[in-house]
């Protein structure tokens, strides 16, 4: 059994469809994960000096609560495998809802489960990236901002944000690539992404070499596009 190029051309449409789905899940995961990550990352340091001055009065217990919730989220996600998270959301969560709310026929689409899983998973790791970058911002810059009389919101958006964001780009690129590759694990809940497509074609024609080589190259192309995009942003922002 030699290397048959025709195997690749024949399976290309199905693999490209899988790659497209992988790409869509990844982009949704990155966008949603950024939103989650920024919220949870800032949440973990709410009420600390990393975000300006410490709050007073009723805000104090509120920030403690926000910190606990954010940390609980991050630690739960980091402490469990993504494959377990996907299976829990797809298989176990509907049963939980049925049991608790007594709803018949509640189910989550596999693709929906995949997207939600990747968003929350990426979000937890991005939260740590955000937190790390924000606490690395020189306190003197925060004091300079506060001395001008700006609000905490302005301080976060106009001082902390831009400075921290530049430091976040390299680790973010890393996380985006990890998330893209993590979508291959959704094979376990039957999402027709790239790895699943490869697996199905393989099961019918047993051409492991051609199929897995093609799949690998497709992943490589997608991760390269992600990496190059981030490098481009990084250059435009001139890291200091």
């Amino acid at each position: 059994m030699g290397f048959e190029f025709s195997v690749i051309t024949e399976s290309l449409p199905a693999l490209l469809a899988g790659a497209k789905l992988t790409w869509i899940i990844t982009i949704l995961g990155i966008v949603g994960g950024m939103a989650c990550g920024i919220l949870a990352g800032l949440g973990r340091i709410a009420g600390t000096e990393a975000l300006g001055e410490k709050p007073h009065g009723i805000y104090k217990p509120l920030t403690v609560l926000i910190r606990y919730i954010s940390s609980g989220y991050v630690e739960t996600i980091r402490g469990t495998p993504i494959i377990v998270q996907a299976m829990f959301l797809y298989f176990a969560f509907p049963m939980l809802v049925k049991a608790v709310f007594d709803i018949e026929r509640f189910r989550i689409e596999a693709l929906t489960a995949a997207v939600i899983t990747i968003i929350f998973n990426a979000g937890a790791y991005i939260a740590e990236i955000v937190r790390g970058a924000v606490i690395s911002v020189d306190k003197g810059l925060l004091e300079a901002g506060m001395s001008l009389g700006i609000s905490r919101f302005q301080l976060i958006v106009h001082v902390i944000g831009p400075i921290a964001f530049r430091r976040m780009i390299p680790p973010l690129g890393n996380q985006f690539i990890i998330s893209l590759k993590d979508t291959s694990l959704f094979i376990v809940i039957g999402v027709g992404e790239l790895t699943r497509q490869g697996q199905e074609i393989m099961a019918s024609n047993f051409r492991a070499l051609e199929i897995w080589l093609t799949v690998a190259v497709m992943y490589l192309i997608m991760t390269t596009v992600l990496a190059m995009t981030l490098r481009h942003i990084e250059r435009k922002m001139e890291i200091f």
Partner: protein
Amino acid sequence: MSSIIELKNVCKSFGDIEVLHNIDLSVQEGEVVVVIGPSGSGKSTLIRCINCLELISSGELIVDGIRIPAEKRKIRQIRLEVGMVFQQFNLFPHLTALDNVAFGPSKARKMSKSKATDIARDLLEKVGLAAFENKRPDQLSGGQQQRVAIARALAVSPKVLLFDEPTSALDPEMIGEVLDVMQNIAKDSGMTMVVVTHEMGFASQVGDRLIFMDEGLIVEEGKPGEVMKNPGSDRLKEFLGHVKHH
């Protein structure tokens, strides 16, 4: 003349350690007060209390009619009227010199971008850096950065400027340019200034009053020339001996 800053029996503690003890101080509008004292004597803490970067632990602080702690909600208003210049410049590294200076007018005073930029241009010109408006902080010398920082503080038109050892992080050849700018501000605009510095030449030429702090207390105060000529305490005598040899 009325006092724009007033500290009444102010104490400041960090944890269990009290670093300012029962400070009474009032600064008149247009006055230039120079604060000297050994390291750790509480100079920075004193001026950081004035713009509420540190909250006083007890006593009362009145800045431009706003009373702390009674009116804690108006801290931002105090900061709009009290600018600060730091030892380490603390320019925003992601912004050009012009945008650093325009930051306050546009964000804190909510002016239009073009108006803020006009103000910033004027001030950069005033501190002699018109040609450097598009440079980022890391492309400027220390002296230039500090002059931009002074322009940034001035840009929100504060009534008071606080300086925390503005020349201590500078190479000796750059100290003069920064002191000149400070002197011009004091002379031209009649700005109220509280300056922590060990530049005794500046203190005697520009200062209206000299305050000597030691161990969290104001030990001596008076006209700079007189205090320097006739120090009342051994601590000040010793301290003046030290700074003169610098």
